[in-house]
């Protein structure tokens, strides 16, 4: 592929993932200039998506830009890693207008900053002041319990555990009583039979 040779000059390797998918891994410092080269020199004019992955264990966000050229016959993934703390990326909305909404979403969901972005306002959430929800250290269960606390019980509500215990004990006692009654009945029957035999 011609692109592979061009990237080799920039000391980058083009990995072929399948017939239609290629991947280039770059350092975050090289990202902006490489994206500019892709649009201006290599004619990859379509930014299909910007994907963000939280690699919490490594302390980085892995960002993937998916680009397509005019023929739209393959996709190139340009991947970079940035530190999770104070994560910052250059905004691409001037090159690709659709990057504005993609970056707004990424800012809200992962807390990535884009200096110079015109509208880093609320996307799907309103007045969010917690950890960005798509970060993996965001505890969904804790958040749900905090926002939707369990409703307290009524004053005359019964304690389910206690009631279950009482029921079990009552059931056990009834069973014991039935067994004792059956045994007494049996004993009575034997006694009657014996006395009848004696009378005979």
């Amino acid at each position: 592929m011609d692109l592979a040779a061009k990237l080799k000059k920039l000391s980058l390797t083009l990995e072929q993932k399948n017939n239609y998918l290629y991947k280039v891994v770059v350092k975050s410092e090289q990202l902006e200039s490489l994206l500019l080269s892709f649009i201006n020199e290599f004619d990859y004019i379509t930014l299909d998506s910007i994907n963000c992955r939280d690699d919490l264990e490594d302390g980085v966000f892995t960002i993937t830009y998916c680009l397509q050229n005019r023929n739209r016959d393959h996709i190139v993934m340009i991947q970079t890693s940035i530190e999770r703390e104070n994560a910052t990326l250059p905004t691409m909305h001037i090159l690709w207008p659709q990057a504005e909404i993609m970056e707004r979403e990424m800012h809200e969901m992962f807390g990535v900053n884009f200096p110079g972005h015109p509208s880093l306002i609320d996307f799907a959430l309103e007045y969010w002041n917690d950890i960005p929800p798509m970060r993996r250290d965001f505890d969904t269960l804790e958040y749900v319990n905090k926002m939707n606390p369990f409703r307290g019980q009524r004053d005359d509500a019964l304690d389910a555990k206690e009631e279950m215990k009482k029921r079990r004990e009552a059931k056990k006692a009834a069973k014991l009583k039935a067994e004792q009654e059956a045994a007494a009945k049996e004993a009575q029957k034997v006694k009657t039979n014996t006395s009848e035999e004696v009378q005979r």
Partner: protein
Amino acid sequence: MSDLKNTIKIFHGPQHPGITGNMSVELDLLGETIKRAQTHVGYLHRGFEKLIERRTVVQAFTIVCRICVPEPDPNEENFARAVENLTGLEISDKAKYIRTMVLEMQRLATMFLWMGGQAGSIGLGLIPQWSICDRDYMLDLFEELTGGRVYHMYAFPGGVRRDLPNGFIDKLSELLDYYEKRIAVYNDTFFDNAIFKKRAMGIGVVKADEVLKNAYIGQVMRGCGIKKDVRKDMPYLVYDRLDFEIPIQQEGDVYARALVRRDEMLQSIRILRQIIKQMPKEGEILQKIPKHRKFKLPANDTYVQTESARGAMSYYMAGDGSEKIRRMQVRGPSLIHAYTLLEKLLVNAQLADVAMIMNSLGICPPEIER
């Protein structure tokens, strides 16, 4: 901002019959003319991507179809293909044909639903009643094939979940004959309708030179004369063995997009007829896959694309060596069409045209706030 003097602000949606789901557009109106439009989402955030992060492949499979209600199958296909790409699973020819068939059946069902919305948005009340009924015939077939009418959970990594029922192909064949006749009727009553033509021509015009740069896709792209379709450009499943055309129009307006959709319905019927002829009688339906907790995804990532009835739908998927999916990101046509494109198209449009323009872009809000 001086343009916004003396304007009134109204919300079009989220509870509005002319909106394509749970989203709203904030409009600044001067008389009936829109001076500014801002899209708002957040009414339907179900957090699919977050849910999927904590689930295994089998568990996540039941969620993905819910990402877009009108057309769940491209989501299932993307999910299945992404897992297959990561794990190196190869599927049989028969499974490929069945999946292609399901995708084209879904395309037809989605188009009928769109037709109802598009005609309803300009007050043509008869067309939605017809088209929703016609869509239901396809849903009957889906029910017979998969057990579900709207959500199918059918295309599974490694193939499909069950074989075709007896007599299914004959029923599909009959339905295609019926649809072909119906499309001719819709042509007379809807596509050639003077009201629709007068309302839709010259409205919501997208310029061809903006399309590729702004990543507009689907009928928006093909309505501007750009002959691109994932099924042809990056063929998946058995699309490279099928003979079909990519319909295009030049005008770039609402009417051009409607005509592209109508022609795509005819192409789908053509594709389905070829599939019926070529479908192998024998073949593995579902490859042997590891058990639930042992189905591990390697530490790698992939990106897959499927041509849905509204444009290219892409999934980014990454594994981390465990049985859980590290990251799955959905990119459908709706995000860019609802923000970058719709906000722009609505400026200087009339209030009465909002629903019509929105319908023509194929926006599906659950896909925006995954």
